[in-house]
């Protein structure tokens, strides 16, 4: 929370202005009962009509002054909280932009999005409330006590009884209620995840005719949610009536003791009325302040979640200073080992190989053998744990990160596109690309044909809810996006898996023709995609089993033969 409060600094002046203006509003509010008491005790008692009217006008004036205070406060409080919210959001977003992949893994996409949206909103709201209500109620509370004591110190003793009673009641209800709210949330999450699962697996549920089973399962969770919700709501049902009862009973007490005092002449009727007014103000303020606490504790969870991200630093440090010497793609792995921060086991062990400019190096291996990890090290999504990777002879950690990545075109396993037109998406790879270059890239990626068939061709808008592209089409677009960069190194991480065989070989053909200088790293599952490679790295359990071209490997490498056989069968040989 402290870290976030720093973000309030630029808004110190507006924050102070908001608090001061709130003080004005509170003071004006506190004046009203006293003025009213004057009307009763001087005006009515003496039959002084002009005095009554004068005081009435004065009260209206006071009320109008209150408007200035109240509206002024909200004006400055809004500027402060919105500014604070926007700044924090930007800080968070920019922090995430700086993260290395292990940090993204650590937080998960959906959780980062919640932090950027809901959590920021929560914190922003709490700032607004701090500036308005959390100053208002304590001020009303204190001011009310001061006014009550100055009105009649002896009568103020009533407060000595009611405030502790109220505080204790509040404490007990909340202590019982809070854990229940936590439980309600948990059960609600369970119900939601049960329905999410059911919707996701609707085909399987239908195929296995399991709707009755699913219904029973859901119903159990649904009823569990109901039980705990009812319990929580019933406990909270105590809150308001109990508070009101305490408040009202203290008014009754004031009336009774007021009677005694009025009778002995130590107090006047108007003062008794005013006193009841102050009393309700004080107790109400106390109650609201406790409600505020509830909100603060909710916001604290959000604040902690934001701070957690802000305090996390990227593990890939961009401290390199060396500029690029050449735009060739000579890539060397030297004894590279790597393990993910949360795991103790190495994902890659002692990997060494050299990819010369223009070469195609394919990596083959089982799921989890470390193929993708190996690719992720080149653009420094993660940093090697041991050993080094050299680009044109320079350790990539010594290069400026932006320059390193500008040399790399990468097509990830999952084809992620952004909302915008098709052209926008391809140009995403290289902002300055001309129309011709975009077209050429699309053609090489075998995407031109289907793009032309779309209603608006290259100007077709794709978005989260836009045109439905098939998996293969998305993959081809993300390939075009990488190709338009004319990268020195092209990384294709199993990125044509959803493309049919004919298209895939057309792609490979086009790549061979148009990217002859580009070093290509290729992760693939189908053996025929790797057979044409200059080098094939067979990876198993994070270690290189063998390196060689197809012929060499088929002659000597067991693992390779096994894969080959499984896909090709004997007659093809």
């Amino acid at each position, binding site marked *: 929370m402290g870290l976030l409060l720093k973000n309030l600094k630029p808004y110190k002046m507006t924050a102070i202005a908001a608090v001061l203006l709130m003080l004005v509003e509170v003071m004006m509010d506190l004046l009203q009962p006293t003025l009213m008491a004057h009307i*009763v005790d001087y005006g009515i008692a003496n039959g002084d009509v002009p005095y009554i009217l004068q005081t009435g006008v004065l009260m209206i004036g006071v*009320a109008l002054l209150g408007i200035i205070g109240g509206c002024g406060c909200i004006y400055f409080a809004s500027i402060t909280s919105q500014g604070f919210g926007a700044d924090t959001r930007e800080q968070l977003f920019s922090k995430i932009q700086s993260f290395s992949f292990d940090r993204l893994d650590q937080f998960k996409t959906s959780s980062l999005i919640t932090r950027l949206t809901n959590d920021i909103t929560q914190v922003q709201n709490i700032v607004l409330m701090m500036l308005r209500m959390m100053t208002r109620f304590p001020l009303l509370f204190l001011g009310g006590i001061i006014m009550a004591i100055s009105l009649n110190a002896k009568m103020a003793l009533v407060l000595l009884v009611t405030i502790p009673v109220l505080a204790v009641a509040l404490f007990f209800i909340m202590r019982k209620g809070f854990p229940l709210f936590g439980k309600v949330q948990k059960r609600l999450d369970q119900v939601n995840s049960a329905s*999410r699962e059911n919707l996701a697996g609707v*085909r399987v549920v239908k195929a296995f005719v399991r709707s009755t089973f699913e219904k029973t399962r859901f119903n159990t969770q649904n009823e569990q949610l109901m039980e705990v919700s009812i319990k929580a709501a019933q406990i909270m049902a105590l809150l308001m009536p109990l508070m009101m009862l305490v408040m009202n*009973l203290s008014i009754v007490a004031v009336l009774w003791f007021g009677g005694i005092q009025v009778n002995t002449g130590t107090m006047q009727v108007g003062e008794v009325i005013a006193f009841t007014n102050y009393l309700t103000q004080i107790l109400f303020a106390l109650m609201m302040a406790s409600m505020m606490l509830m909100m603060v504790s909710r916001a604290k969870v959000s604040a902690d979640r934001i701070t957690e991200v802000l305090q996390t630093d990227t593990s890939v440090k961009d401290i390199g200073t060396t500029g690029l010497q050449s735009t060739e793609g000579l890539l060397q792995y030297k004894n590279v080992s790597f393990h993910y921060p949360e795991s103790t086991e190495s994902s890659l062990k002692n990997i060494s190989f050299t990819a010369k400019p223009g070469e195609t190096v394919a990596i083959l291996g089982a799921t989890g053998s470390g193929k993708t990890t190996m690719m992720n090290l080149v653009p420094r999504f993660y940093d090697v744990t041991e050993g080094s990777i050299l680009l044109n002879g320079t350790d990539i950690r010594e290069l400026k990160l932006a320059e390193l*990545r500008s040399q790399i075109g990468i097509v990830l396993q999952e084809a992620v596109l952004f909302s915008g037109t098709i052209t926008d998406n391809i140009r995403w790879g290289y902002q300055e690309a001309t129309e011709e270059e975009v077209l050429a890239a699309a053609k090489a990626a075998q995407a031109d044909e289907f793009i032309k068939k779309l209603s608006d061709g290259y100007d077709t808008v794709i978005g989260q809810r836009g045109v439905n592209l098939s998996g293969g089409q998305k993959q081809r677009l993300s390939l075009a996006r990488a190709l338009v*960069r004319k990268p020195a190194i092209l990384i294709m991480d199993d990125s044509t898996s959803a493309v049919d065989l004919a298209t895939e070989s057309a792609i490979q053909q086009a790549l061979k023709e148009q990217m002859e200088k580009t070093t290509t790293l290729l992760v693939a599952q189908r053996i025929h995609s790797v057979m044409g490679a200059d080098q094939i790295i067979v990876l198993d359990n994070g270690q290189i089993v063998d390196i060689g071209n197809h012929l060499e490997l088929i002659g000597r490498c067991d693992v390779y033969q096994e894969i080959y056989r499984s896909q090709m069968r004997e007659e093809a040989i």
Partner: protein
Amino acid sequence: MSKSSHTEEQGRSGQGGFRGPGPSQVVPKVKAANASETVKRLWGYLKVERRSLLIVVLLVIVSSAFNLMGPYFIGKSVDSLGIGPGETNFTTLSTFIICLIAVYACGAFTSWLQTYLMAGVSQRTVTNIRKEVFDKVQTLPLRFFDTRPRGDIMSRLTNDVENINTSLSQSTIQIVTSIITVTGAVGMMLLLSPMLTLFTLLIVPLGFYVTKQIAGRTRKLFAAQQKELGTLNGFMEEGISGQRVVKAFGREEKMLEEFQEKNQRLKKVGTQAQIISGFIPPLMNAINNISFAFVAAAGGYMAVQGIITIGIISAFLNYSKQFSRPLNELANQFNLLQAAIAGAERVFEVLDEEPEFADQKITRPLTKVEGNVVFEDVSFGYKPDVPILKEINLTAKPGEMIALVGPTGSGKTTIVNLLMRFYDVNNGKVTIDGQDIRELNKDDLRSSIGMVLQDTYLFQGTIKENIRYGRLEATDEEVEEAAKLANAHTFIKKLTKGYDTELMEDASNLSQGQRQLVTIARAILADPAILILDEATSSIDTRTEMLIQKGLRTLMEGRTSFVIAHRLSTIQEADQILVIKQGEIIERGSHEDLMNQKGFYYDLNHVQITAQDKLTSLSTMVQSIPQG
């Protein structure tokens, strides 16, 4: 529920709730299309709670009445105090004070009881609705899920139902209480002094006017804010989920720039909205204070004239507050209620969907299935004018393996969807053992067909439970046996808790291959006569696939199976290969037949062959190739 000296606090406390940024003072208006119909239907759910509801309504009336009596007795007590020393009438004072204590105690008790009862009523009702929606969703055809984003269905099942809950438990009570309190307060005031009532009410139109003016303005601003927020959220969502690509392409700076621009736009309109809407509470506060002044001055004047007593002034001060707060509250609660009704409408929309095969009256049970599957001149399109499948004819004899091959989107999956009756044919018919599947009991039909899909759907629960999903009454031994056949037993045994290992959401603690093995075990346990494998191995690497293939082969033995796959290795052994392109079967036959035809299938494979061209000639030189 009782009076409070400063009335706007309640309204203010409503801020910063769950309803997005900005005070909830002005709830963005959501219009319900047919409110009265929806309310009537909601009432249908409440009917079972009739008795409790009746008690709640009575309690609301009683507690409001008690709370209205409070100020009256305060006024009476004040009058008993007298004006000067020695004038206090302790007999009447003590009577009124006892009355006050009784009134307040009863008021507190009744308002507690009503909330207590209502908690049960609303929760039970909502649980019912939620159950009904979920049950309904189970009966809906696949078409429903295909045409709607999953998030939309989810939000109906969660948010919208939750909205109904809040409005039932809070808004309705609040609205009834407010109405009773307002009319009651006006009544009491009129009873005490019609003249002073006039003065008190003088300020009310001003309050209405101010709120209306501001509300009109803020609605526009909130709409604008909501739009900017939507844009920014969409941008952030895309930016974060595509973060890896952003980094890969070094687009961080550019993203940040775009973000800043959108963020500033939101800040600007957000600040405006917040300021303008934030004016309502202080203005209402001031209006209350002015009304307070009116009552004090006018009341004072009238007291001097001897028209009223001081006690009446004090009662009025309290009533005027009881009166103005509910008015503010009423507008707010009404908007909440509107939102809830709109939510209920969305929920009812789901309930009104046509269930699967609603028109089907008579169904024949399907007992023993041989596995003779025939498609006769089958045509199908999701929309009648856009055919997906044209004139499909195929015959699968018991135990045969049929491979469906073709480019993405050619209609392979649609064929198996028709066999499962996820969709119904437009023309022609599909028969199993000579019976039109439309005449069969759909549960029997589906039970006799097993499916292994590319998407492995496993639910949160143990591995054992997930396998048993195939046949709920299977014993532990049978589950284990199925896992062994599927080649899943070995990896399951290696897990710390074995078959009792809890799967996390999306089964993320298993690898893709392991998940697939579990689904195969599940299908084996189900022991269907007909099997569908839809790209079951496409997202798995080849070595893992070999493991799975063994499992699949066991599974396919003696069953009629339909296999959709990219990989030749899977396809080649098929008894029949059907090549489908743009919804038509263009080639059919065994692998050898089709290769000899040198048609589309040959071309598909040619890719592999050409890639091997150099190799085949070379590989003859490599004598050391072991044969598999």
